[in-house]
């Protein structure tokens, strides 16, 4: 799953919605090791609050383990969903994977 040797990348695509809750949970659970995580959600076409909850759970866990998480979101609907849910300050969202990687490697040095 990794694209860089330091950062672990998890890709989710398609519709992240209630009907695929288990699938989403499995995909996120499979990525727990010590590395920072880049959640590549650039190919996500739709997301709902159930997916947000799963993502939030994942990020909270990572926070407890002091692992930084960066999200790559390119779909307007998804970005707005996070705004509507009032979670804009909770997730570290980037439009481009390179920016997300830069943020994570910066956090690594600290």
């Amino acid at each position, binding site marked *: *799953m*990794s*694209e*860089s*040797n330091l950062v672990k*990348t998890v*890709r989710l*695509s*398609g*519709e992240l919605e209630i*009907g695929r809750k288990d699938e989403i949970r499995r995909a996120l659970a499979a990525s727990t090791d010590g590395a920072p995580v880049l959640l590549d959600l*650039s*190919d996500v*076409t739709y997301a709902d609050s159930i997916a947000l909850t799963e993502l939030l759970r994942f990020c909270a866990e990572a926070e407890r383990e002091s692992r930084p998480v960066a999200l790559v979101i390119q779909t307007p609907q998804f970005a707005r969903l996070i705004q509507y849910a009032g979670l804009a300050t909770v997730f570290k969202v980037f439009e481009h*994977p390179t920016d997300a990687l830069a943020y994570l490697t910066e956090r690594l040095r600290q």
Partner: protein
Amino acid sequence: MAGILATERTVSGRAGQLAPLAMTLGIMLLVVATLIAGGFLLRATVSKAFNDAERIRLARTHVAMMFAQQLNEETGLRGYAVVRLPIMLEPYYGGRANLPLYFRRVRADLTKLDIPSTLTALRDAGRTNYRWVHEIAFPIIRSRARHTTLELRGKVYVDRFRADTNAIDRALAARTVAVNTRAQGALLWIGGFAVAAVVAVILAATVFTIQQYRLGIRLEHERTAYETEKRIADILQDAFGERLLPSLPSVGFSATYVPATEQAKIGGDWYDALQLSEDRVLVAIGDVTGHGIDAVVAMNKARQLLIGYALIDATPAGVLERVNVDLVRGKSPLITAICGIINTRTREFAYACAGHPPPVVVEPQGHAKLLDFGSLPLGVAVKTDYHTSRVQLLPGAMLVLYTDGLIEHSRDLALGEAALLEAAEAVAALAAPDPAAEIRDRIFRDRKVSDDVAILTVRFAENSAGATSTRRIA
């Protein structure tokens, strides 16, 4: 022998300077070329890696899109199975239209990237979708029944399709890692070369600077050495310039030394006349091959050795043999010499010759002849045999020892010898007070001195009224 001020100095300057300069320039040019090439290579590597990563990324997006079409088909079918309205089938028809498009795109991407396992998975996904459409979708769409079991089987197909696309995605992710690792490796190499190039430049510049510094010091040394040489020459000239000749009642000595060039004051030729004991006088003459301070040093050494051994060895041959051994061992230049011992009471002249021109004897009656000569010069081989010749001289006879400068003024040795004999006879007849100078003047009246000349004459008194010795004239 030429004097030491005509010494040639090895000019180490010119040739020695060009080589390191050329080398340094060469290295720097090479380094600049390497850096430029490295720059291009760096750019090419980075853009290739970026392009590769982009291509893989795009492939992964296409794979995700393809799976999304399968899910769309499933969403549409599932909705329609429950709400039998055509509007529910729109996602299904959307998927049916787009899945082949993405399928072909993915196939093109994977073929270009050349990962065979992914093409196998793709083919399986294609087959699985086909079966899902025909075995699951068509029956459900055509018939109004619920087909719960079909739906369950449909899930199995969709799960399999998902497994295939996940496998392809994992392979692409692995390829990205490989691409990145390769790019990092290439960048490290390029970086390494750049660093090495910079280090090489610094080294070359340092070496060049050191070289120039050393050269400067060497030139300074040589300048100092030359001045020292000149000082030594002047000192030696003062030291050995005075050649006192023995003053004896029955034997008269005269000598002269003519250097080849005006500047040279002493050279490799020498003569000695030394009283060893009441009856015995050492006469010696010698000629060192070579020039400069080395010749003078060698001459001096030979001279000292000869005198030293003459004091302990009775025979001229023995003396020369001992001197020869020392000179060979000391790696001396070749020296021709005559060592002679005159018994002033018996007028016997015993001598040994080491490759030197033959002594001349002028009989009291006035006839000049050459004596025996031969053997190897001194300093050739340790086991050289020398031979003592004994000549009985009569009162009024004159002996002339000389160096080859006196007879080699013309190319014809025979002519030179003839001229010498003629001059010797004439001078003996004249009974001149300084026969050596007279002989010199006669020989070189019309001729040029091309090599150093030393002349030593020994005259036996006709009666016991005494004979005069003449100091040397330089």
